[in-house]
């Protein structure tokens, strides 16, 4: 046993000095390898974290949203329906919502305008729930935060993305062209905190009164309703009852919203998948190149080692240590760099690629989220194939006869 350990020590020592002998080559190899691991790990961390973020935010989304449908399209919702829904058994409360989009031709960006709960004068139930939503024990990020700024008629609270894009801030004025062509000037009452920028970047909070003025919506209509159900297991049942009582209403349950959002985030992550697969491809080519190459110098050395009494298995062990050392170093360096990149520098390397997606690119400060599964996946994608790839050519080296050492001529 002690012999075996001593032998491994010798082999590792020799491997180390072998690696140092080809400093330039191995350093280049290590750098390339680290880069690939870095890209793979960055994309993986990014996509996972963004999904996690989205899930956290959406957990706080309403259980049921009810829309009115006209000719298959989303239409304004008559407030008269509210009472009907409230009377359905199992419904705890009903909230009306006002929201929509405004296209700003100046910066060619779409803003999402939203009236926060309790800010619509026309609302039948003046229930003033806080924005913070406490569902379950899980930490749920609020959809937006008012940051202490007070929203009153004639003012707006805007998302960070808009503030950056328009280079405006608190107490600046922002002109809007209303549905009838009139120009409305709003004062910025505050900027949303950057906590949940993923969702709030393009968000604009506006009072119900102003919203109706801007889009020409009368007091008897809202955009849609949110319904809170007493018993979560009754969500589907309540939804079908709504559908029965109000045939032109469309109840959408949260799971469906989650799925929709999921596909949006997946799409955003799609960019990442492209980068990811490119990196995997690069890695495969790189590993293959490594696998097929055994330089004349290496062959010669293996011949000498075998001639002086090394077994094929000793040579394979040496190559195994070589592959393991390079790949583990690259793996840990790459993963640590990627962690810093994604969670501390806001994916600075990917930013240009992601920015093309929207002019309102959120400045992510993703919550560090890495699990064992990600690391294992990465490990099996990089370290394992590489180590195998370094051993493979050695099987061919096994065919190098030890007596070839007797026939080497010249140095």
């Amino acid at each position: 046993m002690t012999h075996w350990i001593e032998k491994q020590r010798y082999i590792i020592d020799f491997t180390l000095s072998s690696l140092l002998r080809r400093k330039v080559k191995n350093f280049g190899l290590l750098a390339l390898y680290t880069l690939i691991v870095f890209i793979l790990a960055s994309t993986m961390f990014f996509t996972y974290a963004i999904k996690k973020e989205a899930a956290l935010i959406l957990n706080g989304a309403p259980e049921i949203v009810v829309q009115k449908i006209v000719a298959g399209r989303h239409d304004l919702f008559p407030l008269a329906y509210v009472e009907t829904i409230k009377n359905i058994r199992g419904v705890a409360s009903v909230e009306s919502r006002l929201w929509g989009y405004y296209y700003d031709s100046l910066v060619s960006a779409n803003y999402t305008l939203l009236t926060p709960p309790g800010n619509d004068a026309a609302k039948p139930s003046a229930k003033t729930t806080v924005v913070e939503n406490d569902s379950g024990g899980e930490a749920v990020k609020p959809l937006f935060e008012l940051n202490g700024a007070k929203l009153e008629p004639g003012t707006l609270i805007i998302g960070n993305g808009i503030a950056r894009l328009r280079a405006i801030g608190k107490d600046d004025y922002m002109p809007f062209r209303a549905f009838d062509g009139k120009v409305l000037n709003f004062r910025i009452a505050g900027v949303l905190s950057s906590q949940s920028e993923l969702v709030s970047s393009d968000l604009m909070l506006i009072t119900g009164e102003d919203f109706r003025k801007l889009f020409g919506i009368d007091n008897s209509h809202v955009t849609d309703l949110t319904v809170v159900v007493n018993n979560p297991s009754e969500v589907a049942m309540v939804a079908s009852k709504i559908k029965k009582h109000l045939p032109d209403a469309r109840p959408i349950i949260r799971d469906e919203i989650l799925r929709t959002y999921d596909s949006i985030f997946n799409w955003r992550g799609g960019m990442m998948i492209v980068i990811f697969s490119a990196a995997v491809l690069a890695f495969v080519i790189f590993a293959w190149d490594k696998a097929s190459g055994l330089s004349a110098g290496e062959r010669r050395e293996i011949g000498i080692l075998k001639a002086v009494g090394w077994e094929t298995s000793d040579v394979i062990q040496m190559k195994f240590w070589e592959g393991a050392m390079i790949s583990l170093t690259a793996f840990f360096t790459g993963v640590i760099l990627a962690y810093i990149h994604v969670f501390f520098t806001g994916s600075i390397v990917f930013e240009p690629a992601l920015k093309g997606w929207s002019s309102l690119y959120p400045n992510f400060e993703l919550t560090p989220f890495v699990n064992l599964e990600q690391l294992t996946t990465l490990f099996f994608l990089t370290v394992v194939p590489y180590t195998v790839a370094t051993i493979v050519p050695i099987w061919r080296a096994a065919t190098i006869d030890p007596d070839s050492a007797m026939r080497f001529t010249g140095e």
Partner: protein
Amino acid sequence: MIELMNVRKVFNAGNPSEFSALNSVNLHIAENQVTVLKGPSGSGKTTLLSIVGCMSRPSAGRVNLQGREITSLPERFLTDIRRKTFGFIFQQPNLIKGISVLENVMLPAYPLGEKRSQLKIKAMKGLSELNIANKAASKVEWLSGGEAQRASIVRALINDPHIIIADEPTAHLDSKLSYRFMEIIEKFKAEGKTVIITSHDPLVYESSMVDRVVNLRDGQIER
């Protein structure tokens, strides 16, 4: 001690380039003697040496080493025998570049897993016996031809082999160093080792310490 019976070696069998390097060679090499294999270039000296030293297998025939049939042994056992029984001195020093002389010399002992401190003492002793202890830490590419040759001799002896095999050891040495080499051979003999050398250098085969000269021609032993 070593017995070859009807040994044949055919290269590239079945190809148009098929070449028979050894033809029914029968040879007995006695213990504690210096045997020289002599013959023109291409006569099969190196081929014969590699078969004797368990580096390659004959295409036909049998090889007995210390009464044991070795031709049919699996590679692992051959390697083990090679490592423990033979010390090889090649025509070229065949040292591994980029690592120190000391490491090169210790290389054959690595798979045995001996304690490093003991191994180092042994290696240093070997190096000082051949007057190159002062080069232990040097890289091999800095050595002169003769120093490299001596380093490779120390390497051949590190596992304390019974049989020393040297292929054209003096081919790259001047006559002074060649004499020096023969003195080393004499020492081996005095230590009870068996030595097999190939050479076409008269300085070697005419030397007084050589017990037997075997002439090879076209893969056959001349009588």
